[in-house]
């Protein structure tokens, strides 16, 4: 079984992004970029399935500009067999990403697609669900445990009410939550090895996907600031302050 893994590059989670003064976007020039943390978890899970003999091949997919190859090398160094680079200069929204992934699914016929539940830049949390819909296959979002056996997956999902278990027929789409696994660190020899692994480049337009039906970003603004509060010296003062506000 092949596993396709979505592998997006995002602004590193430690960077506190700033909105440009003219409201035209967020300043991303020169900031540190990293793999989306949920996608690293997705790749780790795929690699573990390959190591257990459940999967035979792990393919990482990235959608973005020409310099995305550097990022895809990371995924190869972590252990993916090969990479597919869907080349586009435009920022891609979830529906377009799902349409592009569907084209790759049709071409590669994976038994499983694992994506992060959300990217930490646009926080959309949509692409996996959209791909499953377009593909007309099951989805198991927010996975914290994944077990595959006899053409089915048993997935424990982190939902608001607790932990839900679903059984889904494969092929299917699974999206990862934080506690599915802890991704491995990349070792230096793996970086060397990754240089000989193939990255296939495909133009988004050549896949027959037109970016369209998009949301138009009209304005960016910083969030309203909470006013700085006061420090109290002890519990008595805290309780008095809360009583004063009618909160206790």
């Amino acid at each position, binding site marked *: 079984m092949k596993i396709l893994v979505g592998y997006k590059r995002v602004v590193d989670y430690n960077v506190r992004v700033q909105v440009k003064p003219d409201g035209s976007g967020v300043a991303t020039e020169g900031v540190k970029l990293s793999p989306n943390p949920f996608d690293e978890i997705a790749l780790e899970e795929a690699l573990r399935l390959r190591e257990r003999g459940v999967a035979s091949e792990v393919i990482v997919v990235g959608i973005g500009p020409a310099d995305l190859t550097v990022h895809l090398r990371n995924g190869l160094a972590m252990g993916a067999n090969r990479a597919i680079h869907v080349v586009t200069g435009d920022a891609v929204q*979830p529906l377009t990403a799902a349409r592009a992934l569907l084209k790759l699914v049709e071409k590669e016929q994976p038994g499983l697609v694992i994506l992060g539940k959300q990217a930490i830049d646009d926080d959309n949390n949509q692409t996996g669900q959209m791909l499953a819909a377009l593909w007309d*296959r099951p*989805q198991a979002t927010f996975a914290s445990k994944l077990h595959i056996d006899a053409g089915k997956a048993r997935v424990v*999902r982190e*939902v*608001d009410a607790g932990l839900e278990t679903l059984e889904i027929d494969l092929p299917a789409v699974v999206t990862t939550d934080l506690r599915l696994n802890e991704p491995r660190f990349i070792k230096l020899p793996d970086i060397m090895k990754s240089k000989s692994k193939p990255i296939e480049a495909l133009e988004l337009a050549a896949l027959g996907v037109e970016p369209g039906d998009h949301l138009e970003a009209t304005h960016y603004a910083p969030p309203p600031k*909470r006013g700085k509060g006061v420090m*109290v010296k002890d519990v008595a003062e*805290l309780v008095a302050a809360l009583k004063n506000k009618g909160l*206790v």
Partner: protein
Amino acid sequence: MNKTLIVAEHHDGKLNPATARCVSCAQRIGGDIDVLVLADAPAAVAAAAASLQGVSRVLSVANAANVHALAAVYAPQVKALAADYTHLLAPSTTFGKDLMPRVAALLGVAQVSDLMQVEDAQHFVRPIYAGNALLTVATPAGQTVVATVRTASWPEAAAATQPAPIESRSIDVALPTHTRFIGLESGASDRPDLQSAARVVSGGRALGSADNFKIIYALADTLGAAVGASRAAVDAGYVPSDLQVGQTGKIIAPQLYVAIGISGAIQHLTGIKDAGTIVAINKDAEAPIFEIADFGLVGDLFKLVPELQQALA
């Protein structure tokens, strides 16, 4: 004329209050508001939805296949009704986040996540980068707007003086059987629900163990509060994952939020920005949580929390 369909979230025959928050958001969009109840036995949930102020009509669909909220089963049914509506909404809970992108893709349209503000029927504000920026988006003209509603940004709709009519519907579409519900392990307790509680007490990594978390539960019980936790406390296994507050956990807006032993990572602060009053107790005076706390107290939580509980008992 706008016409909004809200997909009701419910569990164990009860309407989730997140649905009432979607009604407030739909009222801001304006026009008619229908609520869709997909269930095996929808009567009680439909009645609860009909009693929300602003609801024009409740569509009640009884079908054994709807006994569990499976996105793959619900989505084709929502799609089947979509042609009658300009807007389709569900709460931005794990229920709505799972379902609405699937609905949008079936309709071939974009989806707006975590709707915080409505500027008009086509323009919406939503958070990006863990809430560090607010983005206004315009949806394409003539397209159905499919969105999830950030519940912390909207109040629950009030009770109606006159209940809205309830119409039974059957939706004749093929439903998949490739997705099967096996079980739910719920941390349900007698405490208030974290997502909708007026008061929340949360603990962080500094608690040090699952056993030590009992002082958080004790304080919460004294306050009649729900219990939450930071990602670090959940990752360390002190509490179950459904207590996680933050960017990838629950986004909440209680009147009172008490953060104990939580340093205040960006992703946690994202989950509590809309809280009325934030109290922080932490031994590190430099902890980022103090930058957004209304009242901060520096000291040993193992001494201060029991003391606070005593003082409030």
